[in-house]
């Protein structure tokens, strides 16, 4: 496969920018013509996938639309109806499928997400708070000049800063952001363990069509996409979820259970997720964290579960094993190749280091953004079957320890062995460590498609 046309693809799709601060505006279009004018003006700002020869830019701009947003831009009905059903419905209507009920149900979401007013996501990432403010001011000016949209809200997000340096830690203290897949044609330094597993034990990039519309996917066919195809090609779908973290609950639960667990607190925390807090995979180093592994791209994601079917190193229900089961279901991992997602996103809210006071009510969490060619086949499947359910790993109705919508019920089994430092252990009466505060499904178009939207050139087929 030759290289992709990187200048036609939004940069946000092809690479995690690794920029420490971000602001996500949520736009509402009031008039189609003015909104199109706004998109036309924005076109020159949108960051593409073109390589940064001159180093990282000070800031980046990307844009994506909800179904309501595309309707507000007055796309033809025939085109709107050609989008996949889950996108047309939006995330709120999929709450039952996703297990977004009880504490996570839409009536408990932030007000922004409770009605259907969000038309577009405008994502700005930057090197520094000053660069972010500068770029955002320019964006707000554009909104006002064109009258194309009102900003309903702006979500701040930023890498957690420890000792003056931005890190990839999240609020529970775990190092995040290891597991994004490699795709054919997407030029980035590829890392063993991030694509698909081959029968000989090596790893290869996934088919481009698992990420981008208009390319063959792992089943050898084009992903379901809206018509006309030029509107879809080089675009993708984005899932946006604001995940609130109940930090006090997490710490109290961990302390309470660590007191009963023979392996110690840090090991119990590692068993929840499958990695020690510094990121060392349990599968590679079950007894202690090892920064030489965590920081080595050739090792940090390069492992399988085949030799640990009973979960004695990494529990069968640990978060990373659930959401990226690798070879755990047999068939050399072939059953999972069409269930992979690319994650973007950053934490939000103040970081409270271990030992500092923390409450559940403070606004704190992670902005989870997932990119995939098919929301239903990829994100929704992972969320329903692997986070909120457990049949594939033979765990019945057990849910993901950290992400699951437990509501005070359920359990998590830490499989162990006969040694005192690695005993079997059961965590029960699970609270919701994470709560959903809102979000939606977005279409992230190519540069060509943005131009078509701006000029009103989307003809029905």
């Amino acid at each position, binding site marked *: 496969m030759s290289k992709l046309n990187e200048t036609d693809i939004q940069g946000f799709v092809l690479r995690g920018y690794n920029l420490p601060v971000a602001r996500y505006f949520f736009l509402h279009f009031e008039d189609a013509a003015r909104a199109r004018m706004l998109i036309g003006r924005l076109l020159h700002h949108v960051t593409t996938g073109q390589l940064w020869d001159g180093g990282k830019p000070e800031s980046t701009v990307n844009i994506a639309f909800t179904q309501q947003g595309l309707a507000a831009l007055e796309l033809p009905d025939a085109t709107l109806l050609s989008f996949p059903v*889950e996108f047309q419905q939006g995330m709120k209507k*999929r709450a*039952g*499928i996703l*297990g977004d009920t009880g504490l996570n149900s839409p009536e408990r979401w932030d007000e922004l997400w409770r009605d259907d007013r969000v038309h577009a996501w405008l994502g700005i990432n930057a090197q520094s708070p000053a660069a972010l403010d500068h770029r955002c001011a320019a964006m707000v000016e554009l909104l006002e000049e064109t009258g194309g949209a009102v900003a309903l809200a702006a979500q701040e997000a930023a890498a957690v800063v420890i000792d003056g340096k931005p890190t990839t830690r999240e609020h529970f203290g775990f190092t995040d952001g290891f597991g994004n897949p490699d795709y054919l044609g997407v030029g980035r330094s590829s890392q063993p363990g991030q694509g698909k597993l081959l029968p000989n034990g090596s790893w290869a990039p996934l088919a481009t069509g698992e990420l981008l519309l208009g390319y063959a996917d*792992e*089943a*050898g*066919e084009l992903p379901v996409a809206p018509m006309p195809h030029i509107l879809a090609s080089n675009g993708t779908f984005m899932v946006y979820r604001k995940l609130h973290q109940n930090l006090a609950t997490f710490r109290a639960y961990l302390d309470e259970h660590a007191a009963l667990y023979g392996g110690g607190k840090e090991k119990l925390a590692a068993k929840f997720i499958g990695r020690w807090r510094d990121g060392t995979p349990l599968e590679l180093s079950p007894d202690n964290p090892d920064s030489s592994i965590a920081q080595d791209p050739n090792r940090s994601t390069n492992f399988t579960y085949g030799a640990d*079917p*009973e*979960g004695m190193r990494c529990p*069968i229900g640990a978060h990373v094993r659930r959401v990226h089961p690798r070879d755990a*279901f*047999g*068939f050399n991992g*072939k*059953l999972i*190749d*069409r269930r992979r997602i690319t994650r973007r996103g950053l934490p939000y809210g103040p970081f409270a280091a271990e030992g500092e006071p923390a409450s559940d009510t403070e606004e704190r969490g992670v902005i989870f953004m997932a990119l995939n060619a098919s929301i*239903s*086949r990829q994100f*929704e*499947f992972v969320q*329903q*079957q692997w986070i*909120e*359910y*457990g*049949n*594939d790993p*033979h*765990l*019945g*109705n*057990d849910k993901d320890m950290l992400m699951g919508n437990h509501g005070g019920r*359920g*359990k998590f*089994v830490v*499989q*162990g*062995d*006969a040694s005192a430092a690695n005993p*079997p252990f*059961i965590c029960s009466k699970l609270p919701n460590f994470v709560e959903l505060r809102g979000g939606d499904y977005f279409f992230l178009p190519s540069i060509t498609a943005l131009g078509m939207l701006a000029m009103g050139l989307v003809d029905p087929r």
Partner: protein
Amino acid sequence: MSNINGKIYALNAITPMKPWKTLVLRGFFFLLGHIKPLQQDLINLSFIEFARWVVLPRRQFPFLGNGQVKEELQYDYLLFFSNFNGTWNQYIDAFSAVLSKGLNLVWRWSEKFPGAVPVTPFKEYIARVQFDTDYYYTAYPHAAANDLKSAHIVQASLDSLSQRAQACTPEQFADAYLRFVLEVQAHLGETGEAPIVF
């Protein structure tokens, strides 16, 4: 009338075959029945409760007399019957992803079979030849096949612990209990409602 009962889905598909092709298929079934490793992939898909293909020869359809008109059928038929856990899409996706060669050998003798890969025409084909279930009884709608297998493991292990416990000292019991927990620790999933089908 539904194909779904709790965590289980019942799928029936009937496809016509030219009679001379039935002979070839029977040959393949004979091999499949006698070479166990050939069945292994199907068995390893743990969400399948069972899957069975049966040939319905055109001259062996029931004839009841009593005014039933004699028919001269042109085709033999292949009945596929399977019960599985999870959604229809998940099932066919998995079939197509890991069993395509075997499925092609079984179904290629049926008329208009498009092949198990790519998956979309395969799904269209199955949807077209599928017959919905009129009545579907299942003893454990809140349990998947994996849950039942796990329950057997836990039960057997508990029974044996209970037997050993009769004559145990407290120290021996502690040891026996640990071994019991290690035996069952990967088989303790809850049973319950199935996720919403989509």
